[in-house]
Structures are given as C-alpha cells and as structure tokens.
C-alpha cells in the first residue's frame, strides 16, 4: 500500500488565527480514511488547501509522486481529486441531469455516452427519478446524494467528503455509507470529515485526528477510540461546544461518559 494523497506540514493562518499549524496526513490508495477533530481544528481548511480553494502558507500537498500544492481548483480536479462540501453546493437552477454534466469533460460525439453514465450514477444514488427537476427543488439529503454523484462522473481517484452524514436522516446515512463502501470496493479512495462517530468508525480503516491545526494521532479506529490524546482533544475546554453542538439531528446522542464520545 502506498500513500495516494499526502499533506506535509501544512500551515495556514487567517490574520492572527492559526488554522493549520503543520498538518501532516496520509491517505493510502484504496482505503477509506477518516479525518476527525473538534470544531475549528482545521479539517475543512485542510480540505480547502488540498483542493486548491486556499493556498497554504507553508507545506506541501502530494498526489502520488506529484506535488500539487497551490494548484487551482479546476487543475486539482483534473488531477483526480473530487470533493463535496459541508454545506452542499449544487447548481440550483440547473436540472439534476445538467448538474451531472458540468463535471463531465466530454466532446459533442460523446454526449450520448455521458448522458447514459450520468443516469447510471443518478440511479446508483437513487435520485434518477428527479433527473429533469431543477436541482434547487431537491431535499437536503437528495442534494448530498447529487453532489456525490456529480463528483463521481469525472471518475476521480480520491474523493474528499466533507460531512456526508451531517443533517441527514438515519436511513439516508446508511445509504450513503453503503454507496461509499461499494465505490471503495471498486477501488475508489476516500477521505471523510465527519462528526458522526458511528459513521466514521464503521466505515474508515484509518482515522486521523486533527487538533488545533495539526494531526495529533492517526491509526485504525480501534486505536483511536482509546487514545488518550484523542480523548483530551475532545474533552478539552471545547467539549460542550464541539462535540455536543455538532451532532446533527440524525447523529448519535452524545453521552456524558467520555468513553462513549467516540465509540
């Protein structure tokens, strides 16, 4: 196994606030990796740096052997890294099918094939019945599925998911988890930011924990669950705000008992 996606010592500051203070993570090819950490620990910033939406002050992003630090978002996507956003971003005034075609790089002659592929993917996530509706009329959960589907059409090697289960009902969370597993079995690599611990621990083969802008520990879920540094990160002064406040309506209820927090 080799690292397909790596960040090395990424630093990023907004004015006086250090969002990332040397974040180093590594995602093995063909795995589902999780990225967890309290609010404000820099997870989304790290996503933004990897996908070119923000330039790091220091550090490097590597895709395989290739340095992709500070490439523009369209170039990062072309390299083979797709992502979804925490607050789902779809093209609301385009139809669902048109949303799928934005990411599809194709010529006129391939139009038919691409459309068929788009419909297949919509069927895969279960919203093909809405293909001709305006995307803005989809429910929140359906939007999440659409966002996953239109990222898939360009066949990226790594997919970064920013809170795929946030604010989604339990049935849909299971569907999303199933789809991620199925894609993974076909060889897709995932990096997932998620606050729903059940989701992360059930899905990921390795988990990295960010705290105050750097990775404090990474390893298999069983190890993370009992790691003292992780418990510290979650049970520091920020505990109430960060974990309790972050659970979406469908999230697992947060217990007072520290050992349950990340079980």
């Amino acid at each position, binding site marked *: 196994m080799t690292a397909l996606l790596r960040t090395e010592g990424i630093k990023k500051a907004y004015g006086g606030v250090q969002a990332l203070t040397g974040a180093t993570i590594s995602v093995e090819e063909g795995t589902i990796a999780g990225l967890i950490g309290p609010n404000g620990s820099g997870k989304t910033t790290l996503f933004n740096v990897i996908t070119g*939406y923000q330039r790091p002050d220091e550090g490097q992003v590597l895709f395989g052997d290739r340095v992709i630090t500070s490439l523009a978002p369209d170039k990062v996507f072309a390299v083979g890294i797709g992502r979804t956003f925490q607050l789902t971003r779809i093209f609301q*005034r*385009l139809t669902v099918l048109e949303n799928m075609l934005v990411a599809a790089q194709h010529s006129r002659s391939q139009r038919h094939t691409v459309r068929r592929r788009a419909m297949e993917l919509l069927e895969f996530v279960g919203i093909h019945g809405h293909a001709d509706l305006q995307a803005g009329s989809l429910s929140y959960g359906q939007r999440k599925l659409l966002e996953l589907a239109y990222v898939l059409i360009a066949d990226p090697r790594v997919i970064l998911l920013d809170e795929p289960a946030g604010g989604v009902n339990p049935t849909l969370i299971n569907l999303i988890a199933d789809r991620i597993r199925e894609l993974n079995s076909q060889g897709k690599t995932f990096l997932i930011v998620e606050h729903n611990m059940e989701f992360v621990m059930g899905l990921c083969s390795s988990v990295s924990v960010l705290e105050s802008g750097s990775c404090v520990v990474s390893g298999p879920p069983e190890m993370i669950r009992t790691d003292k540094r992780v418990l510290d990160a979650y049970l520091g002064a920020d505990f109430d705000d960060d974990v309790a406040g972050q659970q979406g309506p469908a999230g697992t209820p947060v217990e007072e008992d520290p050992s349950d927090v990340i079980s």
Partner: protein
Amino acid sequence: MTALSRGAAIRGGLLVVALALAIAFPLVFTNPAVTQYGVFAMIFVTAASAWNIFSGNSGYVSLGNAVFYGSGAYALGLMAKGWNVQGTQVFDLLPLVGLIGAGIALVFGLIALHVRRHTFIVITIAVFFIFQLMAFNFSFTGGSSGLNSPFLTWQPVPYNQNFYFIALGFAVATVIVATLVRRSRFGLQLRAIRDDEDRARGLGVKTMRVKMTALVITGSITAMIGGVWFYYINQVQPQTGFDPLWDLQIVLMAFLGGYGSISGPVIGALIIEPGTLWLNTQPQFSGGYLSEILLGVIFLFVVLVMPRGIVSTGAEWIKRLRSRGRPAVVPAVMTEQAGAAALVVGGTASLQPQAKDGGQ
C-alpha cells in the same frame, strides 16, 4: 415523447411565422416613419440578445455594454474616414468592427472579470465612463461634436428597408448564436458559473476562460450592431454612443422579457424600444422625459413583481391553466402537506356551518 415533439413542432411553426412577419413588416408598412421603429427594434433585439449571451447566462450583470456599442460606432466612423471608404463598402468594415469589439471585450474582461456581483457591476459602470470620457477628450474622436458617417445615396423608403434587413440579419444571427451557446457544454458551464462559480471551478470548469469567451462573443456582436446603428443615423456623439440610459435599457429589456432565456431579450426589446420611440414622438409627453420616467417605473415593476420576466411567468401561467389552477410542479412531500392542510381547512370549514347551525 409525442407531447415533446408536438411542442417542438409548435415552437418551430411559431418561429417560422415570426420570421415571416418580421420579413414582411417593412414591405407592408413602407412609410419610413414606421420602418424606423423596426430598424431600432432590431438593433435592440440584437444588443439585448448579445447582452444575454454573457450576462444572462453567467449572471454577471454588465451595465457597461455601451462600451462595445459606442466603440463599434466610433471604430466604423474612424475607419471609414481614415481609409476614405464610401457607400455600401462601409458595410464591409463590419467584420473588422467585430474584431475590435472582441479586442475591447478582452481588455474589459481582464479588468472586470476578476471581481464578482456588485463589484463587477460597479467596475462595468466605471469602464463605461472611462470610454465616454475618452470619446469626449481625444482629438481623433471629434470631441463633443463626435463623428459623421459617409452618406448613402439611397432613397428614404429603401434606406430604411435595407437597414431593417441588415439589422434583422444581425438579430437572427445573434439569436442563433445564443441558441447554440445555450445548447452547448460551454453554455452549461456558463450557467453553472451563474449558480456557483467556485463549485464549477472545483469540478474542472476553466471559469476565467469560459467567462472571457462569452464576453468576447457579446462584445463583438454589440460592436457590430453599434456600427450599423451609427451608419443608420449618420452620426455618433460621446453621449449617444456611450449612453448610460442605453445600458439600462438593454438590461431592462432582458429582465422584462426573461433574464437568461433566449426569447426573453427579444420580446423585451420588441416591447420597450418601439414603446419608447412612440412616447418620445407624442407632443403631450413634452421632450420625451416621460418615457425615461416610465422606463424607471417598468424597471421597478419588473424587479419587484416579475423578476423572472414575461417568458417564465407566462409559461407558468400557461402551465397553471393547463393543470386547472394547481401549481405546475409540486414536490411529493409538499403535496402530502398541502393535502393535510386542505383536509384541516376543509374540516374546519365543514365544521363551522354545523356549529353555526347548532348555535341557531
């Protein structure tokens, strides 16, 4: 499928009829006072449709397209004067005017396309005033007295007819270009930029290139129709070539008809331009200021009451009529809720008379 093809057939038929009417118009109404309305209408159909190709699709509202229009007028005048081109040969210069328009759009885009939304609008206005000031102050543009065009020896009736058909040609070509853009992958990328530019970029859309291409198409067409307008009225001054009201007018036409749709700007231009011209000729509306006030009122009305324009709102009404008063598209969940609400309402309504009866 059959409904679709029938719809397409109806639409095709309507297009043919509209085109036939447009061609017949100057042949039936030969009076130059009437055909003049037609010439200006076609000029504005072209300009508003061209505006829509960039601004309507991308959502970058430009209030500075007069930059291209005025530059086209001046470019044609300067080239005709400098190279001593006369008569109908002046029309051969129009492709060059288009190239100049494209070049100006490129520079315009490099300045303005790095910013978005409100800042973009403000920058287009600023660039517009820079161009107007340049026209006022450069010596080669003739200062405030502007430029005159060479004369055409045509008689009044064929003069208007010929210009009408030239402008109609531009209008039809622009609508065709707009349709091609709309149906292409390029057009889809433009509309994706309108909805969420950063997201589009993250999906591999080369946003700057896409926006720039659209702006260049718009600038080139607008400059050419500006050249036609200049040769038609035989003159251009800084305040007529670079007219802030002109900018507002084409934006209003697009909004009134239907921002972003293909037929919208056409319909808007066909309503507003003849309307404005007619108002200006009515003596009781002294000096034509009323038409400007009216324009402002229409603008307010459109933005507040029907922001999606005649085409979208009209289509909605037709759909509603067909579905007999029910809203055209109702998400499944909504119907359930609406049904429940109707039950509740119906329940209380049916209860009320009973209660009344009981009371009596």
